[in-house]
């Protein structure tokens, strides 16, 4: 006996899903946060259209055909149903999508349901023939791709969280925080917390929920200021005298960078970190203006 063929199965998901603010108790702020994001049940209209090939005078053209879902009936064509005398049973002929998704297998009584879901060109966003003015209801989801995307998202979230947790270090049983960097990031993401540990937790929360945005913004933010400092050095706007950053053109100290022997790139990073903070905001603006003026001067000459 031949092996049973695998029954074609599709998984569909509502197209229109967004946050509602209704969060499952106990999950808020956790990586398992569950938020209601769609209707509890969506009734899909049971009449629609599909394309079919029509042969006339030896020429094949594609024409629209009205289709109607009838429970337990694999035939979808309204014309064929009417011809056969199969009347609609409105109370039964309903396709319901519960909690935003559903699975349909093309077998038994569900052949019609499967075909209707897949073939209609009004409600199926994944149908390449979907009408341009349609307001689709659902899309067919490739579960393997979905899982891959989920894995990718998890990986990104992992990277983002790792970055946040790298801002703290445990030395001799005591946590040491890179407070200036943490504060600058809190400023960037509008995070408000009293303790450095709470700030790290809040940043980790954002990193978990929106890792993509978090990483992009952080990289851009950190690079922009570092570039500014490097540029200022290059244009001879500032210089490092020992561990002190000062302006060359005017007798003004920007920041004392601390004690000990430091490499040039270390000094750049410390100054950039300072400029990212709220305290360094004015200094940053001043430096930006000086660099801009130096650039113009260079261009003029």
């Amino acid at each position: 006996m031949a092996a049973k063929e695998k029954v074609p199965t599709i998984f569909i998901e509502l197209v229109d899903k967004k946050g509602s603010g209704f969060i499952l108790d106990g999950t808020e702020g956790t990586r398992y946060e569950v938020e209601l994001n769609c209707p509890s049940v969506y009734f899909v209209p049971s009449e629609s259209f599909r394309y079919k090939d029509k042969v006339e005078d030896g020429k094949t053209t594609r024409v629209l055909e009205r289709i109607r879902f009838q429970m337990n009936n694999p035939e979808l064509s309204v014309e064929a149903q009417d011809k056969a005398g199969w009347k609609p049973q409105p109370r039964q002929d309903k396709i319901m999508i519960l909690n935003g998704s559903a699975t349909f297998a093309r077998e038994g009584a569900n052949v019609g349901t499967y075909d209707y879901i897949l073939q209609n060109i009004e409600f199926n966003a994944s149908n390449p023939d979907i009408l341009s003015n349609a307001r689709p209801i659902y899309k067919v989801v490739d579960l393997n791709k979905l899982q891959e995307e989920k894995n990718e998202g998890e990986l990104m979230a992992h990277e983002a969280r790792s970055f946040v947790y790298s801002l703290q270090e445990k030395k001799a049983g005591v946590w040491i925080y890179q407070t200036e960097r943490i504060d600058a990031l809190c400023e960037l993401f509008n995070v408000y917390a009293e303790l450095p540990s709470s700030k790290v937790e809040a940043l980790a929360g954002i990193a978990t929920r929106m890792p993509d945005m978090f990483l992009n913004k952080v990289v851009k933010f950190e690079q922009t200021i570092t570039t500014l400092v490097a540029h200022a050095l290059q244009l001879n706007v500032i210089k490092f005298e020992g561990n002190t950053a000062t302006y060359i053109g005017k007798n003004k100290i920007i920041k004392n960078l601390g004690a000990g022997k430091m490499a040039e790139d270390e000094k750049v990073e410390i100054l950039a970190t300072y400029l990212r903070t709220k305290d360094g905001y004015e200094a940053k603006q001043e430096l930006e203006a000086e660099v801009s003026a130096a650039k113009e001067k260079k261009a003029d000459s």
Partner: protein
Amino acid sequence: MATPVFSNRPKVCTKQLSLDETLTLPKFNAFIEGNPDTNTGNNFANACGDPNLGTTFYKNVVNQLIRCAGENIDINFVRDLFPIDSAPTKMVDTKRWYNHYMCDTNMNIYFAAGSTATTASGTFVAQILKQFHGGSGQYTLPASGYSLWDKDAMIEYRVISVDSTTPYAHKVTLQPTDETVIGSVKVNVPYLVTPARQVGGCSCKEITNSLSTIGYSQEVRPLRVRRDWEICIDILRGYLDKIQYAVIYDLQGNPMDSFDVYEAQQARLGVQMALNIAAFWGTPTTNPALIDNLDNTKIDEFYPGFYGLMPSLRYGGAVVYGFNPSEGFDMENDGEPLFLWQDSQKRTHKFLIMHGLAWKFGTNNRANKLVARTDVGSNIWEAYRRMGTLSNETYEQAMVKFGVKKYEYESFELDTKLIGAFSDARYAGSSYWSNIGICAPKHGVKQNGRDINPVEFYQTGKNGWTGDYFEAYVDQRYTAEMCEKLSGYSAESMAMATHCPELWIILEPKIAA
């Protein structure tokens, strides 16, 4: 008609005319030079090429024949949907609060994937769907020893164990109680859990922790809206040239003569429009780029806003029923499946349908066609007669009800309310909204067992300081800068919550593509 400049109640005017347009635009210069005696390029008569026009216009102006016309825009429609009388604004003394919901208790669970035992009476493992976990994913309804029932097949399974290692992905080991059954569970099928153990005659304790309810909480944050205005006092000292008539009008089309009122009214109108549309479609601001405590043009962290009516419903679990608006919502074909669903969930069966005009037309049309479909020949009103008999009314009375105000069938009662703003394309309305029906539950939204309003408005306030509507007026001649200007602003805070979205129904027009 002079209207007080200062008011503690919002008043609005819909005439689209700014001071700048009135006084400086060439168009207006043409108006005021409507007198043919003047002879510049802006002369109204010259501009239009008809010497009589200028005279006619001038006379009309003098005789005040200009009027505002047309239906007023219903700026306040969302707050009017749930009038203050029935839904008084609640005062809260915090800027952040939570509503907790357990509107839809369900003793069934769904599985994430199907699973089948390999032998009769054997055990098998199935994973519970994510949504059926609570307590940070630590708990689910089944616990060791409980029974799980395949309702339609009347098969009982014993829960042998629950592996709760992975939050939100608990795995249940099941075993059929009948030795001949090969156990099997499927996706998209509800399985009932009865939370008690079957034991022998001399049982001992076996404490199990299981979930009793799965609840949701929604955070509510207020939204604050403000609009400022400023005018130069000089324009109040006398109109330019020949302007001796009113150029602005109130909502009823009555002329008004105070420019400053107009500016203030525009401010009031702006505030009300912003609040009403936010209450209808709005969602909280979460974009960090738009939140800045120090930037006057942005919101701060304390006023991100709330989920308005439609996002709360649509994405918070309401029932959405797609129907064809060109055929109209049909009480039999469309209504009855909905009623059956409502009954299966034991949800609300008395609704107030707030709808646009097109929805009503479509529904009436389908209702009337019901008669023809019953195919009763000369007794064409028989369908209605039967309904009348059911409800102990004459069929004429039933007809009136059916077509206009109310639909009653078995225990279901639908009252309808036409919302003009849904079809007002000048404002929030469109073809889509004109065809929509939003069914608000008339009962079922409860707090401590008592029915409450399905929508609540909130105001933040403490020690007499509130975010209620406020309007300020400043004469800058008396301030340090001593400018000859008047200025003012209107501002108001608001928050709202739509309770138990799953008890609501949206009758959504799927407009043919």
